[in-house]
Each structure stands twice: as structure tokens, then as C-alpha cells.
């Protein structure tokens, strides 16, 4: 078991958005989060990664998570290779060639990250996951701005990761071509009743 959520509730801006979310991801498993805009996917993923506390319930495995959000965390003034090398060092791994390869970044390697097109930036952001060395990938709308070829690269990278015993939790609105992934619709967990939130005392 790589990641487990037991009866998790999360809030954003003081408002509970999701309630009673439970899921288990074993090695080699992927799960896709679905749900309309504003339903709380981003919030859940941030909580899973330990960036924000959960209101209730438990997350185990947060320390195994590599997170990738709506923003890519790129430095406009570093080259593509430098950006990737930094994250490799920060996560204590080495070797960025495989990651550059996987997302066809080699031709861009000397370009400054700030001078990439939207989709190229995204590819670089995704390549970062490969150098973290973390077994659980948590991805928030990873394929935004990607063309079909890049989506295929992404699907291949995820498959490779799963094949190597990793796990992935992916929020998305579009089809990723990952037929083996289970689907969790967060709309079913929409928080209705007042929860023991941070402002519970005031209700």
C-alpha cells in the first residue's frame, strides 16, 4: 500500500469542500480524480501532499508523494536542464537524461524555461516528476496545454512509473488514455453538513 486516505475531509478558504473521501493506492495502481470545476480536486491533492492539513480523517503515505500542481515551479532564468537538475538535487537523485528523454526535451535543453511555449513548459514540469524518485505521483491536471503527441508521452511515462511499482493520483477533466486507471468522482463526496472545520467554534 503506497497511499491511503481514510475518511478524509478537506476545506479551502475555511469552507469544507470534500467529506469522507477514502481511497487506497497500491503499487502499480493509478487513480483518476474527476469532478466539475470548483469541486475540490486541487484542494484534496494539496492535502494528500501534506501542503495543507486535513480537517478530519487520515492520510498515510504523504511522505512518499511527489506533487505537481497547476503551476510548474519553473525558473524563467534557468535553462531547461538546469531547472531539472535543481529538482533532482533537491530530491537527492541524480541523472536527468532519462527524464529529458521521456518528454522529448533534449532539443530544448539549453533554452531558458521562460522562453518556452505553454505546452513545452508543461512538459518540463512533468519531467520533474521523473527526477523526484518518489513512488507516488500526485498530478493536478497534468495535460493542460499539451498536444496529442505530448499526452502520449505523458501516458507512457505514467505507465512506466506504474510498471516500476509506483502509483499515481491524477486530477483531470480530459481523457488521458490511461484505461487501466480507476476513477473516483469527487462530486459524490461534496461536503454538505457543517464539518468540524476551523471555524466550527463559531457555528
Amino acid at each position: 500500500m503506497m497511499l491511503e486516505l481514510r475518511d478524509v475531509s478537506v476545506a479551502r478558504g475555511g469552507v469544507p469542500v470534500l467529506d469522507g473521501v477514502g481511497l487506497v493506492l497500491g503499487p502499480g495502481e493509478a487513480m483518476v480524480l474527476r469532478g466539475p470545476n470548483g469541486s475540490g480536486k486541487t484542494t484534496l491533492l494539496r492535502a494528500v501532499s501534506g501542503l495543507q492539513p486535513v480537517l478530519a480523517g487520515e492520510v498515510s503515505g504523504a511522505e512518499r508523494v511527489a506533487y505537481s500542481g497547476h503551476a510548474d515551479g519553473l525558473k524563467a532564468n534557468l535553462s531547461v536542464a538546469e531547472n531539472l537538475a535543481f529538482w533532482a538535487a533537491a530530491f537527492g537523485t541524480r541523472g536527468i537524461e532519462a527524464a529529458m528523454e521521456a518528454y522529448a526535451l533534449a532539443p530544448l535543453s539549453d533554452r531558458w524555461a521562460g522562453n518556452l511555449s505553454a505546452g513545452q513548459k508543461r512538459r518540463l514540469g512533468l519531467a520533474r516528476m521523473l527526477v523526484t524518485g518518489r513512488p507516488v505521483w500526485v498530478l493536478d491536471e497534468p495535460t493542460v496545454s499539451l498536444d496529442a503527441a505530448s499526452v502520449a508521452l505523458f501516458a507512457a511515462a505514467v505507465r512506466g512509473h506504474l510498471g516500476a511499482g509506483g502509483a499515481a493520483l491524477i486530477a483531470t477533466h480530459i481523457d488521458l488514455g490511461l484505461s487501466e486507471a480507476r476513477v473516483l468522482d469527487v462530486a459524490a463526496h461534496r461536503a454538505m453538513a457543517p464539518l468540524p472545520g476551523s471555524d466550527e467554534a463559531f457555528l
Partner: protein
Amino acid sequence: MRALLWRDLRLAVRAGGGFGLGLAFFLIVTVLVPFAVGPQTGRLASIAPGILWLGALLACLLSLDRIFALDFEDGSLDLLATAPLPLEGVVAVKALAHWFTTGLPLVAAAPALGVLLSLPGPGFFWLFLSLLIGTPALSVIGAFGAALTVGLKRGGLLMSLLVLPLYVPTLIFGAEAARRGAEGLAVETPLMLLGGISAGALALLPFASAAVLRVSLR
């Protein structure tokens, strides 16, 4: 950790020459002072150590502005917080990088600018020494302020408001040491107190800053 230091140094050097900008600001403020207060040598000499300290402090403050803000905006800070680096270390390293790129050049340049303000002869060494001891405190205190205001739009000025009162003791002892040095008086006490502030700030503030950052990232 080392990678982070390298990255920050490299970014500072690259980003439109962020490296030299604190220095340039310092230079320009020093140059503007005679325009503002008038060119009389005696008057300038008497205020020179203080103005140089104040200029260094402001240059430090301004360049500190976006120490965490840029990383927050482009999402790096989220990722750093999930990386296997202790956040206290991240804060300390970032303050260190800031000191290397801003504090150190300021220290080196201050004596040269002293000439412009007719700083009296013995003052040069003590100005240099007091800045060398005091600027690290400016960097860590500033990092604390930057952590408090990360994620706030227009955080820059609010940060100044929060940080400047915290700079008061450092400024007083630093400028006092430089002034006494320039006037040939004993400088040991203020220098030692300045050292104490620097050491204390270096030892404790990174923890406060990391706690603050964790809250801001939520």
C-alpha cells in the same frame, strides 16, 4: 541544500543582474544624499557613517523583497516544501544566498562610497567591520519578513513596514559603532552587541520563518 544555494546564487546573478542591483541602489542613494542635504563637507562627514548604514539597510531591504515571493508565484515553494529538505534549512539557505548576493557586495563597497561622503579616515575600517557583522542579521530578519508576507499581493511594502522596526536594534548598534569609529571613540561595546544580535537572529529566526512559511503555504 547546496543545490538550492547554487540555484539562488545563479538566479541572482542572471536575473537581469540582480546581483549588482542592491549595490547600485546603495550607490545611487549615497549619491543622492548630497543633493538632498546640500554639499557642505563638514555636515556630510558628520552624517556619513549613519547614511551609509541606512543606505545599506535599505538596499538590503529592497533586494530582499521577493526572496520567497517569486518562488511562491511560480509554484516552486510548494514543491520545495514537499521536497526532502527541512524548511528551516531552506529558509537559512535562502537568507545566506541573499547575504552573498547583497550583503557582501554592500560591505565591500561601503568604504568606497565613504569617500563620496567625506567619511573621516579612521571611520573606514569600523564601517566595514560593523557592516560585515551586521548585514547577516539584516538578511535573516528580512527573510522572516519575506516569509510573513509571501502570497500577499503587494506584499513588498507591507514587508518593509514589518521589517523596518525589526531592523532598529541592528541599525542603532551598527551605526553607533561606525560613528564612534569615525570619531575615534571606543567601539567595542556596540560591536559586541551587534555581534550578539546577529548571532541570536541567525540561530533563532530561521525556525520562526519556517513556521510562518508553513502557515502561508496552507
